[in-house]
């Protein structure tokens, strides 16, 4: 117990030290002040943002969240469905997998401009872009999960008298749930980043837009402040997913 408090205190000290150094570095113009700003400015900016002084404040965050969440859901549903379909039909798997692998190798973040051109700049369009990243993550998670199910469990339930329906319910679904949930955390971190990125590229709303206008006006506080807010949201949702993951992994050896 004592050791944990020691560790926590040490971390706290480091965090405080980080902010102190940052503040001094910014004030003393050690690096270009325009680049790093100071914690004081950043927190003042966040305060202003949340009270709505500059922009619509929370609505920008909501826009970004919408894009991230919609893309996340869409990508997950499509990825899981495709994985189930392709893993289930052997011939299909052999035909399709090379294409999937090739598509996966393409740096999808770099495809953002293509999405903007093709679909436009509405919230839905940005959600499509987000889903294009998430779909690969969830697809591979479920596909690999299905492929890696030990034959022995299938034999066992068959002998016990399981029909196809029961086999799906008792072996396939539980086996892939673990893989899927782990991939959910990965998908989430990419979702938010992708949403901010595509907004940054071309948008007039959302946190990415705020970052972009901050960069244009060489305002470090804006850029860093907006990114900090994004980071906090990401961490909070991830913490929730960690709890879900822990429940789902109860049965695994430690």
């Amino acid at each position: 117990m004592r050791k944990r408090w020691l560790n926590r205190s040490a971390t706290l000290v480091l965090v405080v030290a980080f902010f102190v150094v940052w503040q001094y570095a910014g004030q003393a113009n050690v690096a270009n002040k325009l680049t790093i700003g100071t914690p004081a400015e950043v927190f003042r900016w966040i305060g202003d943002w949340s009270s709505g002084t500059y922009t619509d404040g929370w609505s920008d965050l909501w826009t970004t969240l919408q894009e991230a969440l919609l893309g996340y859901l869409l990508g997950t549903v499509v990825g899981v469905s495709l994985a189930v379909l392709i893993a289930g039909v052997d011939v299909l798997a052999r035909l399709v997998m090379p294409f999937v692998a090739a598509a996966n190798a393409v740096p999808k973040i770099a495809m953002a401009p293509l999405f903007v051109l093709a679909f436009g700049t509405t919230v839905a369009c940005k959600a499509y872009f987000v889903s294009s990243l998430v779909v690969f993550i969830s697809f591979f998670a479920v596909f690999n999960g299905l492929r890696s199910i030990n034959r022995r469990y299938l034999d066992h339930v068959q002998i016990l008298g399981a029909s196809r329906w029961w086999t799906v319910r008792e072996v396939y679904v539980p086996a892939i749930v673990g893989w899927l949930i782990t991939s959910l955390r990965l998908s989430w971190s990419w979702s938010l980043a992708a949403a901010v990125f595509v907004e940054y590229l071309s948008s007039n709303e959302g946190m990415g837009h705020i970052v972009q206008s901050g960069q244009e006006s060489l305002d470090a506080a804006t850029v860093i402040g907006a990114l900090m807010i994004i980071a906090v949201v990401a961490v909070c949702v991830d913490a929730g997913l960690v709890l879900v993951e822990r429940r789902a992994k109860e049965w695994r050896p430690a």
Partner: protein
Amino acid sequence: MTPRSDAGNGAGRSLELDRVTQRYPSSTNDTTEFVAMQDISLEIPAGQFVSVVGPTGCGKSTMLSAISGLRPASDGQVRIGGEVVTGIRSDVGFIFQQDALLPWRTALQNVELSLRFRGRPKSESRERAREWLARVGLLDFADRYPHQLSGGMRKRVAVASTLVYEPDILLMDEPFSALDIQTRTLMENDLLHVWDEAGKNTVLFVTHDLEEAIGMSDRILVLTASPGRLLGDYKIDLPRPRDLLEVKMTEEFTELYRAIWKDLEGEVLAANKLRIPDAVGN
């Protein structure tokens, strides 16, 4: 026990193999095949506890797969109670060598599975599963997951989950070989006890431990090295009920061991590609 139509009545049925052969395509060469067992014919009356011994690769596990319907035989016929085996049957139970319990289900849930698959109401399944867990001494561990149980406990859950639907034929593939020797002996005694209580169904027990085989069975079949053929068929007349620690000390046991080992030794050496040492003095 009253017979149920969707499961065995547990009293056992006869088992026959009629010139059963099992071939596998070679993994390296498309044209050659690996013959796991060749022309095996045997008859096992209902309620007999039969052990199958032989060296590694003699087709013991293959025989069980063929009987269970998991991997049907290439040639020949398997008959249970006179009926030809064409696929997986609801009156056959199989306990695998490695853990086959579903890791994502608790001990109780694992034992219930076969009953739920047969459409029994949830409360009834739960009740019977608890009975069987109690019989193998694990009622207190009903809500544990397999990884929280020891190897011996997992085996006991496996036995409960198989016997709960009272199969007429029980197939066991070296079920205790992964356990340490003391646990193994305890499990052997436990199994005989439960088998007796449950009404003595027909058992086909594969092992490479000759002591275990003699201690547990009414009859021992010896298979040759690959391709497996029937080499020997021994009757074990030791009285029941047996205690595996005690029975090993008896003279009859030692004699049986000597006789069967003579057959088995040659095959084990052949499987390991060694020559039988010449008798002293030659």
